[in-house]
Structure formats: structure tokens, C-alpha cells
């Protein structure tokens, strides 16, 4: 390997445009000086008459461009298929749009609430939450938000699921009373007449008539259009009804002409009638509206207080922590996932450590580091003698033995993992042999799998070639004469090894260790199969959060931390060994 740079055809000896460029530059510089004797003057010219310097610069630029053009396709490919996904993961670890997108009004209303006051938010917040959660439930988004917030406060998931159903009850109170007054309040068309333009209502009626007369009539229902002036009389009702109309058209692919409105709309109607005055209204269905207004103003009209109603759906709504959590996670970006990943949580007083018994990730990170270190050290211990032997044996024998190192290196990871599973099981090969030899009693079989020991043994085996190969390539460059010289100067065997040989082999140990450590802290498959519960790594937790608990943000945050550790090591590896010097297969 030491001959790699010296022998063989080398390009660096051949003149290149760059060398020529420097020479030309030097020439020019000399010409710029006061004349010494050569009075020719003027720059050196190339064959085509341009100054040599410029024409060489052009050649150099062309070469650079050609090299970049060759690299560009792969670079773009890697950026798109690999770097972009990693960037996406980094983004997800802080992204938190869901609360803001699902509960926009609540988030805005909560901004004024002082979460350290110890009091529940005011009615405006409950009112906003009523609209937001009602809409979210209709669009079936509330369960997603519920599971998102459930990561931060257990129980929120079921709270949102319950509320999605329960919020209908609030409007039912008013709807029932309006319905008792006039059946039309529970019909689709009267509402549409109240809210829609005269033209669109007329078009719909014509459509109904046409459909009754003709069996083959297949035209779609005419579009519904909101009337502008209704918003002056019933502002909140109009807003809620227009949301409803959009929903019915886009999600249900139906028409407000044929669907009775949400109970949310009825609640808003009650509020408008309570606060406003409809006596001046003379549009369609004015009678019906005025009758309802009279009913609302009568003292027997039953009303429901929003806060109480929320409390009836689930008393958790009267729990300060729910509102604190919503407020805390309302910004579009959060550090909450990262805090979770390091066993902390957001509180109203800022980030704080979790309770002792809830801290799992710190333990997992420590365990990952500890086990990776153990694996690295056992790899060093096992690889050193092998690499030494390989580098001192004659070439032919060394090549033969090298096969024993390369064969596991080339064998599928799953083959080796399954082999270890087969060997380490309690009914496995090693235990069977030990029992057969009588070294272990049949009922005292060793537990070597589904714990840390299993992971360490299997991973040491799997990563051992990655340690042997760099060590070997360093050791085979150490001249044996140094040790002989040390001995002939009177060093003992140990001194000769420790003071002369070992320091020269350190680069190999360094390269191998970083490589093995980087590979082992990110391992997933082997710990998953032989690690049980105590022998798993942080990667297994990441996989769990992606595929089972679906807490992608936390998975991304854990992944980001792991990635940062690996990148630091990668950088160190690059500094110490150099990326270009990675060798495969000896």
C-alpha cells in the first residue's frame, strides 16, 4: 500500500494547463517589472494571437466545467434522493403546523390568555374552540390533532374524539326549540332560501321541477350562492353557513339545498337573534326568522353556556393543562420534540426535566453510546492480533486467511444475524454443545440472547471485518526492521512492541474505531432481532416511533440528534483518515 503513490503512471508529473498557467503568470509578472534587459515587451501570445495567459485561463475553465458537468448528474441525484429526505426529516423535527392549521381561531383567542394566571380561558376562547373543533370534526381532522397533542398530554386524544361527537349536543338544544316553533328550521330548503340569492333558489326550484317531469334528467344541482345582505342581519350565522355550504359542496359533493345545516349554524343563529335586531329584515323567510327572534327573547327559552357545555362533554376541558398544552404548541415551529428527545418537557415556566420515572431517552442514548463503545473495544481487542498476524505472515498464507475475514464481510447481514440467533438461543447450538459437554446443566442453560450480551456478541462479529481491514492496511506498512532494531538495542519484547510497534499501528486503530463506532451507534437490524428489550439501541426507538406510535416528529428529533453525533464523528474521520482513503475489501 505504501507504494500506492510512488509507482504506477502518475498524472502529477505531466505538465498540465495549470502549470503552464502559473508559468505564464510568472512570465507576465516579470514583464511588469522595470526592464532588466529583455526589451521585447508585450505579453506572450498563443498561436491564435490571444495572450497566452488568457487562453490558458480559458482552457482551465473549460476543464473545470467539464469535470463539474460529469459530476452534476450524480450530485443532483444524491441531493434529490438522499439529501432532500434528510433535510425533510430535520424539518419535521421542529415542524408543528397542525395545531395552528386545525384550531386557527382558538390559537388566536388563546394568545391573549395568560397561562400563568391559574384561571380558565375566557368565553371567547371557548367560542373559538367550538367553531374550530366542530369544523375539524366535520373534516375529520380532530382525531389527528388529538393524537398529535396526546404525545404531549396523555388523554387529549380521547378528549378530542369525544368532543367531535359531543359538540353537536350544544346546537341540538337550540335546534329542538326552533323546530318546535317551526318545522322548517330542520329542513334544508328553507335555510337555503334564507341564506341564498333569489336567483340560485329559483334555479334550484326549476331544476327540481325538471327532474320530476323527466326521468332521464341528469343535470347536476345548480350551484348555491350566498346572499350578500344576509351577513348584515345575521353576521355569525352567515359566516357559519357559508363554511357549511363550502363543506357540503367540496367534501360531501352535495348541495346546501338538500342538506340541513350543521347544529353550529343553529347555535350561531341563536346568538345573532339574541344580540341583534331582525325587525327590519324583509327578505325571504322573514316571518320564520321573526318568529324565532320572538322565541329567543321570551324568558322560557332554554340556553346553554359554552363553558358548561364543554365541561359536560368532558370535564378535562375545564382542566388548565389542556389549554396550556394547546397554547404551548400553537406556534408553527416547536422545540417540543427535541425537548422530549432529551427527556424534557415544555412547561409554562419554560423547559424542565421530566420526572425520574419518565426519562427513557437519556438512558437509551447512554446505553447506545455505552454498547457502541463496548463493541468498538471488543473489536479492537479481537482485530489487533488478527491484523498483526495477517501483516506478518507470508503473502500467500495471509491472502488465504484474508478470505476468512472477507467472507463474513461479504455475507448478508441477515444471514449472520440469523446465524447468531440460531447459535445463542437457549435451545441453540452453543447451549446444546455446553450441555452435551456437561459444562452447563440442562436446566441452567445460559441466557445469551434478547439482552445486551447477545447484541454485543453479534455486533462485534458483524463489525469485526471493518476493524481488521483498516488495521491490516496500516500494519502492513510498518517495516519489521524497526522492531528488530529496538530489540537489538536492548529493548525487551514488551518495550519493543509498546514503544515502537504500537505507536505506528495507532492510525489503523483510530480509523477502524471511528468506522466501527459510527456503524454501531446507528445499527437497527441486529439489535432488533437479538437485543430483546434491554439490548436495543436508539435506532430501534426511532423505528418504533415511525411505524408503531406514529410520533414522527419525535422520531425525527431523535434521528436528528443521532445524525449530529454521526456527522461529528464523520468529520473527525475525514480529518484523521480522509474520505478518499476509505478502502473496501483490503
Amino acid at each position, binding site marked *: 500500500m505504501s507504494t500506492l503513490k510512488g*509507482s*504506477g*503512471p502518475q*498524472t502529477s508529473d*505531466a505538465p498540465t494547463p495549470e502549470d503552464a498557467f502559473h508559468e505564464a503568470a510568472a512570465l507576465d509578472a516579470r514583464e511588469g517589472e522595470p526592464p532588466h534587459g529583455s526589451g521585447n515587451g508585450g505579453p506572450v501570445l498563443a498561436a491564435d494571437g490571444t495572450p497566452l495567459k488568457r487562453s490558458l485561463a480559458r482552457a482551465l475553465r473549460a*476543464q*473545470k466545467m*467539464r*469535470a*463539474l458537468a*460529469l*459530476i452534476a*448528474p*450524480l*450530485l443532483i*441525484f*444524491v*441531493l434529490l*434522493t*438522499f439529501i432532500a*429526505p434528510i433535510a*425533510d*426529516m430535520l424539518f419535521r423535527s421542529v415542524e408543528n403546523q397542525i395545531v395552528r392549521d386545525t384550531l386557527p381561531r382558538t390559537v388566536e383567542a388563546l394568545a391573549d390568555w395568560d397561562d400563568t394566571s391559574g384561571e380558565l380561558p375566557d368565553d371567547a376562547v371557548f367560542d373559538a374552540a367550538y367553531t374550530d373543533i366542530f369544523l375539524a370534526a366535520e373534516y375529520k381532522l380532530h382525531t389527528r390533532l388529538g393524537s398529535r397533542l396526546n404525545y404531549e398530554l396523555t388523554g387529549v386524544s380521547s378528549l378530542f374524539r369525544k368532543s367531535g361527537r359531543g359538540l353537536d349536543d350544544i346546537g341540538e338544544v337550540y335546534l329542538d326549540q326552533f323546530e318546535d316553533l317551526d318545522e322548517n328550521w330542520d329542513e334544508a330548503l328553507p335555510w337555503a332560501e334564507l341564506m341564498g340569492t333569489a336567483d340560485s333558489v329559483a334555479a334550484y326550484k326549476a331544476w327540481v321541477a325538471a327532474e320530476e317531469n323527466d326521468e332521464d334528467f341528469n343535470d347536476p344541482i345548480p350551484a348555491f350562492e350566498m346572499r350578500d345582505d344576509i351577513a348584515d342581519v345575521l353576521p355569525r350565522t352567515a359566516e357559519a353557513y357559508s363554511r357549511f355550504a363550502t363543506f357540503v359542496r367540496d367534501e360531501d359533493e352535495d348541495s346546501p339545498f338538500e342538506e340541513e345545516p350543521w347544529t353550529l349554524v343553529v347555535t350561531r343563529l341563536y346568538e345573532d337573534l339574541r344580540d341583534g335586531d331582525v325587525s327590519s329584515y324583509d327578505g325571504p323567510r322573514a316571518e320564520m326568522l321573526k318568529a324565532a327572534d320572538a322565541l329567543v327573547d321570551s324568558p322560557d327559552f332554554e340556553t346553554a353556556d359554552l363553558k358548561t357545555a364543554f365541561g359536560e362533554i368532558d370535564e378535562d376541558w375545564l382542566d388548565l393543562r389542556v389549554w396550556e398544552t394547546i397554547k404551548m404548541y400553537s406556534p408553527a415551529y416547536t422545540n417540543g420534540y427535541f425537548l422530549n428527545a432529551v427527556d424534557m418537557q415544555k412547561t409554562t415556566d419554560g423547559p424542565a426535566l421530566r420526572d425520574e420515572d419518565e426519562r427513557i431517552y437519556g438512558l437509551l442514548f447512554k446505553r447506545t453510546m455505552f454498547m457502541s463503545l463496548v463493541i468498538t473495544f471488543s473489536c479492537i481487542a*479481537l482485530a489487533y*492480533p*488478527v491484523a498483526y498476524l495477517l501483516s506478518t505472515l507470508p503473502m500467500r498464507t495471509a491472502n488465504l486467511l484474508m*478470505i476468512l475475514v*472477507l467472507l*463474513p464481510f*461479504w*455475507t*448478508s447481514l*441477515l*444471514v*449472520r444475524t440469523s*446465524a447468531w440467533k*440460531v447459535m445463542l438461543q437457549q435451545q*441453540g*447450538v452453543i447451549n*446444546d454443545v455446553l450441555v*452435551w459437554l*456437561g*459444562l452447563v446443566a440442562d436446566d441452567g442453560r445460559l441466557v445469551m440472547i434478547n439482552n445486551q450480551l447477545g447484541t454485543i456478541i453479534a455486533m462485534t*462479529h458483524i463489525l469485526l471485518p471493518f476493524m481488521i481491514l483498516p488495521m491490516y492496511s496500516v500494519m502492513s506498512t510498518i517495516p519489521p526492521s524497526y522492531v528488530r532494531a529496538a530489540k537489538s538495542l536492548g529493548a525487551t*519484547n514488551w518495550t519493543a512492541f509498546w514503544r515502537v510497534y504500537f505507536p505506528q499501528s495507532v492510525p489503523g486503530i483510530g480509523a477502524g474505531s471511528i468506522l466501527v463506532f*459510527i456503524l454501531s*451507534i446507528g445499527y437497527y437490524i441486529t439489535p432488533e*432481532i437479538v437485543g430483546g428489550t434491554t439490548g436495543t439501541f436508539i435506532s430501534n426507538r*426511532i*423505528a418504533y416511533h415511525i411505524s408503531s406510535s406514529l410520533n414522527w416528529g419525535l422520531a425525527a428529533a431523535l*434521528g436528528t440528534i*443521532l445524525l449530529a453525533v*454521526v456527522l461529528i464523528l464523520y468529520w473527525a*474521520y*475525514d480529518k484523521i483518515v480522509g*474520505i*478518499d482513503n476509505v*478502502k*473496501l*475489501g483490503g
Partner: protein
Amino acid sequence: MAVETKAVKQPLQFSAPMVGLAGAFAGIFVGAANGSVLLGIILGFAILALLAFIALGVLDPKLEKPFKWGLIGVMALAGLLLGSLPGLVVGAIFGWFFGWFIYWIGMGRHRVPLQPYLTSGQVLWEYSFRVIAGAIFVFLITPILVVMPLSFNAEDFFTFTPEMLRFDPEGYSLKHYRDFFTSSEWQQALRNSLIIAPLATLLSVSFGTLAAIGLSSEHVPFRRAIMAILISPMIVPLIISAAGMYFFYSRIGLQGTLMGVVLAHAALGIPFVIITVTATLVGFDRSLTRAAANMGADPVTTFFRVQMPLILPGVISGGLFAFITSFDEVVVVIFVGSAQQQTLPWQMFTGLREQISPTILAVATILVAISIMLLTTVEILRRRSEKMRGMSPG
């Protein structure tokens, strides 16, 4: 080795106890298997020391061959009495080993490969060192060797059955191989692997080779940064790549498609192609391309007729690395793929987690055979290319 060391017959008071010690070591196991470790150690020491005394002190040195054969016979018979058929095999191996060992120690043959001036302590250390290294080689290779015979198990066990140990033909069968070749799930997985891996290899080799040629030119700006990006798929932990790809590919609709898996695997294979091809290009003489251009070849012709044939070994071995990366890959495919893209490793992973049947071992054996083939190819190519560049003495 410049200085020849002669084999000198060792004194009996050295060889007999040495052989006895080895016998005591073997006695631990024989004793343990038959009830008493202590008795095993004592008897082992006594018997072997006595045998060494007979062979070296009593018998004529010319009787070496007959003595060795006799020892194999006697030990095999003793093994048969103690432990039936497996005992016979173990006994014969013991007999062969001790026959060789007695003369190796006694006639001083163990000193032949070493320098003549070593003290006996150094000789002992030298051989203990080799035994330790040997044990590590065993550690490296045993798991693979254990899997192969187990895959011929007639039962659905993951360990050697008594029938197998008795070398009873009944204990062996090809049924797990039959399972593999008849089960539609495994066949589908094999087909998927054989579709995905070559496609991914093709992508990474074609992009990778071009880029490696670009990178080997001397005037690449940001060379280090580009190299770091291109090598990163090899360094970033697979679970992180898998997570990122899962998130990103689901955004752009590639998650759960064959295309997605192929692209992901191609990205993972690229570092291997880059590394091997740039290493090959170190020895490539650029004046050859200049010469070709001088004689009127356009860049494309130069590439295919001059450069490509010379770097082909590197390209092929890079391709094999990329192939095996994709063929072995399981983490990314689990996340990026869906049930229709289930590959062999994925199927094995599921099988291992749920412990269905030793069919996995049959598949493992087939995969080992494939790796041996690939390893041989790569080694041949590597040596060839090194020879072509005049770098390897071998």
C-alpha cells in the same frame, strides 16, 4: 526466511509433560461429558504423557506412521464406547490431532517456522498468539459454517437434532430448500430482489462512474465538499436514511412504489461505486486520453475505447458492491417499500422476528453461496487491476 531452523529432537522431560498438558485440556471436555471433570484432567494428562513417552522414547522413530494410524484407531474406538457415533468421529479427530502433536512437539518441528534464536518462552508466546488468532478466525467463520448444515435439518428446529449428530440420513433433508422454491412468498421476494438490485446497480454505476471520472480530474472546485456529500449515504445510519426517505417519499408519492425502492437503493450504492472507481482512476494514465484525442478520437470514443476498458475492473467491482448493498438491504426497503416490494432480506427479517421456519437457513445458505461467488469475482478483479497497474507483488 533467511535463517533455516533445524528440527531438533526435544528431551523427553520436555515433550511428555507438554503433551500431557494438552491431554489434560482435552480431558476437561471428555471428563465433563462423562461425569467427572477432575478425573478427566488427571486421566487425560496421564494417558497422553504415557503415549508421548512410548512414541518418542520407546518406539523407533521410523514407526511414526503406524503409530499415528494406531492412535486414530484406538481413540476412535474409545470414543465409540463413550459416546457412540458422534464419539467415534470426535475420537478419531482427537487421535489424528494427538498423533501429529506428539511428534510435532517431540521432534522439535514446532521450531522450524520460527527464528532459531528465540527462547522457549518466546516460542510458547508465538504459538499461544497463533492459537488466539486462530480462535478469532473461528469466531469469524463459525456462524456461517453452522448455518449451512442446519439448513439440511429434517425437523423444524434451529439446532442440531440427535439424528443429525448420529449422521443418520433420516436427520437430513432438502425440505427447507423445497419450501423456498415452492413457497410463493419466498419466490415473490426473490423476484423482487432480482428486479430491484440490478436496476439500482445500473443507476448507481452509470451515474457513479461518470462522477468518479469528473472527480478524478485535478481542477474540481469544492472537491472535498462534493465527495463528502456523495459518500454520506454510506456514513449516515440506515435508520435515519430510512426515516428521511419514508417521510420525503410519502410527500412526493414514491413511498410504496418499486421506483421509490430502486431510487433509494441506488443512492445507498453510490458511495461504493465512487470509492472503487476513483481508486482505480488513481492509476489511470491521463496521457492516454490525450493521445486518443490527438489521433482524432472524439471524447465519447475516447471514453468507450480507451478509458472504459482500462477502468472496467474497478467499475465492475463497484457495481458488485452496489449490487450486494441493494441485495442485502433491509431497513430502507421496510420503510420505503410496501408489501408488493418485499425483498428476500425483508422476508428473512420477518421470518426471524416471528421464527416461522428454518427455511430462513436454507435461504441463508443460498445467499452465502452467492456472496462467495461475488467475493471471488471481486478479488480476481482487484488483483487483475492491481497487476495491470503494477502495484501488487502477488
